[in-house]
């Protein structure tokens, strides 16, 4: 056993390449600090400086992440995080969903009289947490990043402080999220006990070197970590918190949670998962364990999510349950990942497509929401095509895309996902998923029926649409159609990202 060498000043210096590699994070952190100062000074107006700094920060981060996509992977901070294509791919999802959320929120917060600068700060912090989750290589960093993300989102969920449902949602999410974090942390501790390292790659190396390292302790640890992640992505049976939280949270935040938070949890999940031996050709028993857990969870998630979504009349709640069912499809991709030649690329593609269509739908809900997020029932959509033809058209695109009808992103993503599951010889699973997705067509198309075939009702939300929100919706429509018509580019990007894992 070699002696300890703890004084290593070389760890504290940065080369130019390393600074370039973490530039998205630097942008984001610098921007947050700047925004805090602007918020505290309250120059000009409380909202514009913070909003513009947030937007500029996120755009700068997006551009630098995009430029870094072609760089070689670089391990940083003595193996605590890595800046590779995978991380940057997910960074793009997180930052773009944050941009869309910020743009949608501007008018919404004014209307609700909750225009506080803290909103944008917390948004930035949660994006930072998500980005670090996707790029962490160490369970310690992963946990802190998860907490950074969750803590900010807990507060954002309860941001409408005068609304009881918002408070209830925040409290519920906070307590259950805390419990899930504790489970994940305990699992991480057991993994450390079993392998002697918190580094994800070190763990993999350890079990590859000594197969007896896959002890019951290791299995229990990975189970607990998996359960923690399944909670965060709200798969059945860990979904109880989700509909209430999604309904109670402010509409733009709900959109942000369904896309950013879910993508972040899946990004970290895949990173840990790939290295926990799943598909690495080792530890057969462990692989079947995880396979079985995920299989049951995926089937339950798809069935429960879709069936309950059928009966919902509130759009926000309906989209919450549909978000559960989409988690189920993503889990199908996770199961198929190691067994098909596409690997985890379908999951990444599905996350992008889902982010585009779901964010768009939630921006529309944000536009249409009356006071305290009321007025989002199905019959409030009646005749929307005559009141706001363009919004109705965009909503139709998003609904068709979620139902998986060509030529939209949802179709391309589902096709690619189910194709890889067929390749993995998971035929029963694919049959169940396709049936579930057929059920979902009913409740998605019902929105279209109300929008286009019912007479308009007098709705209080007849106001002008904010230019920022309109811009966000237009961008998401474009992205949805672009992925649907020409999925090639996105597929290539997703594949490159997953290979770098």
């Amino acid at each position, binding site marked *: 056993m*070699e002696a300890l060498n703890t004084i290593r000043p070389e760890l504290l210096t940065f080369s130019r390449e390393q600074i370039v590699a973490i530039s998205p994070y630097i942008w984001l952190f610098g921007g947050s600090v700047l925004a805090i100062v602007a918020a505290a000074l309250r120059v000009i107006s409380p909202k514009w400086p913070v909003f513009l700094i947030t937007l500029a920060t996120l755009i700068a981060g997006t551009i630098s992440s995009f430029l870094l996509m072609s760089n070689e992977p670089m391990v*940083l901070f*003595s193996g605590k995080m890595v800046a590779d294509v995978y991380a940057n791919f997910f960074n793009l999802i997180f930052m773009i969903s944050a941009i869309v959320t910020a743009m949608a929120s501007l008018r919404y917060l004014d209307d609700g009289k909750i225009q506080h600068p803290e909103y944008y700060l917390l948004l930035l*912090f949660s994006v930072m947490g998500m980005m670090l989750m996707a790029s962490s290589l160490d369970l*310690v960093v992963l946990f*802190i990043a998860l907490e*950074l993300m969750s803590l900010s989102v807990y507060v954002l969920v309860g941001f409408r402080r005068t609304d009881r449902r918002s408070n209830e949602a925040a409290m519920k999410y906070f307590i259950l999220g805390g419990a899930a974090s504790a489970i994940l942390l305990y699992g991480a501790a057991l993994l450390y006990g079993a392998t002697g*390292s918190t580094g994800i790659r070190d763990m993999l190396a350890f079990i590859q070197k000594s197969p007896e390292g896959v002890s019951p302790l290791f299995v229990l640890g990975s189970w607990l970590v998996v359960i923690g992640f399944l909670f965060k992505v709200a798969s059945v049976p860990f979904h109880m918190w989700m509909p209430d939280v999604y309904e109670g949270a402010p509409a733009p935040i709900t959109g942000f949670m369904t896309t950013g938070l879910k993508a972040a949890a899946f990004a970290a999940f895949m990173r840990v998962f790939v290295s926990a031996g799943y598909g690495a050709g080792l530890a057969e028993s462990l692989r079947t364990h995880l396979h079985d857990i995920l299989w049951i969870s995926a089937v339950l998630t798809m069935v429960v999510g879709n069936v309950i979504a059928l009966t919902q009349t509130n759009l926000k709640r309906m989209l919450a349950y549909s978000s559960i069912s989409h988690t189920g499809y993503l889990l199908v991709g996770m199961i198929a990942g190691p067994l098909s030649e596409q690997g985890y690329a379908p999951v990444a593609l599905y996350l992008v497509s889902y982010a585009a269509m779901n964010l768009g739908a939630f921006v529309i809900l944000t536009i249409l929401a009356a006071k305290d997020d009321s007025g989002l029932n199905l019959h409030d959509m009646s005749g929307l095509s005559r009141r706001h033809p363009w919004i109705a058209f965009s909503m139709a695109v998003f609904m068709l895309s979620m139902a998986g009808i060509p030529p939209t992103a949802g179709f391309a993503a589902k096709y690619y996902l189910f194709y890889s599951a067929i390749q993995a010889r998971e035929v029963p699973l694919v049959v169940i998923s396709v049936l579930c997705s057929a059920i979902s067509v009913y409740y998605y198309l019902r929105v279209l029926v109300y929008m286009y075939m019912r007479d308009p009702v007098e709705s209080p939300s007849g106001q002008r649409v904010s230019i920022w929100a309109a811009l966000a919706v237009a961008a998401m429509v474009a992205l949805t159609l672009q992925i649907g018509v020409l999925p090639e580019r996105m597929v290539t990007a997703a594949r490159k990202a997953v290979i770098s894992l």
Partner: protein
Amino acid sequence: MEINPAFFYIFAGLAIAFSLLVVIKKSAIASAFNLVCVFFSFAGIYAMMDAHLIAAIQIIVYAGAVMVLFLFVIMLLNADNAAFDMHPIGRGKRLVSASFVVVMAGMFIWVFKNTTYLGPISNFSNANVEAAGGNTQVLSELMFSEYILPFELTSVLLLAAIIGTIAIAKRKKPAALLNGGSAAKGGNAQ
């Protein structure tokens, strides 16, 4: 150093007993004081494992600072008198949760019994730590070199927590005016 198992069982038993009391007691103050006892039992276990720094921090931060905050909050909100109107839990639910606890406990016992201890896998053995200058020194050196990223991220996390607290706790009108006033003053001073 070898741990005397008797001490471990004493401290662990105390920790479990007091944790149960935290949950069972109806009065918030009583729960808080039981929580202090839990923290002290943990500190005892840490100390036995030669993690003296962690034990000291556990007592200073948790049993000291965190608990004082807890008690302040309970007293300020007068939460001790606020009856927790707990709905009586149905027999079926009780049975389910009890059997779940038993299954979980059984599973954990089975797992720990069936895992062969591979010895300290990393090179943080007691002798090595001692040779490198002792627990505290090794810990702080690691924290500022190898674990600098999680360390710094923790401060970002705290910053986010502070901002979140402000967002939740800020009073609607008066505090907003107050903040505006002090900010204007700060602006003038510059």
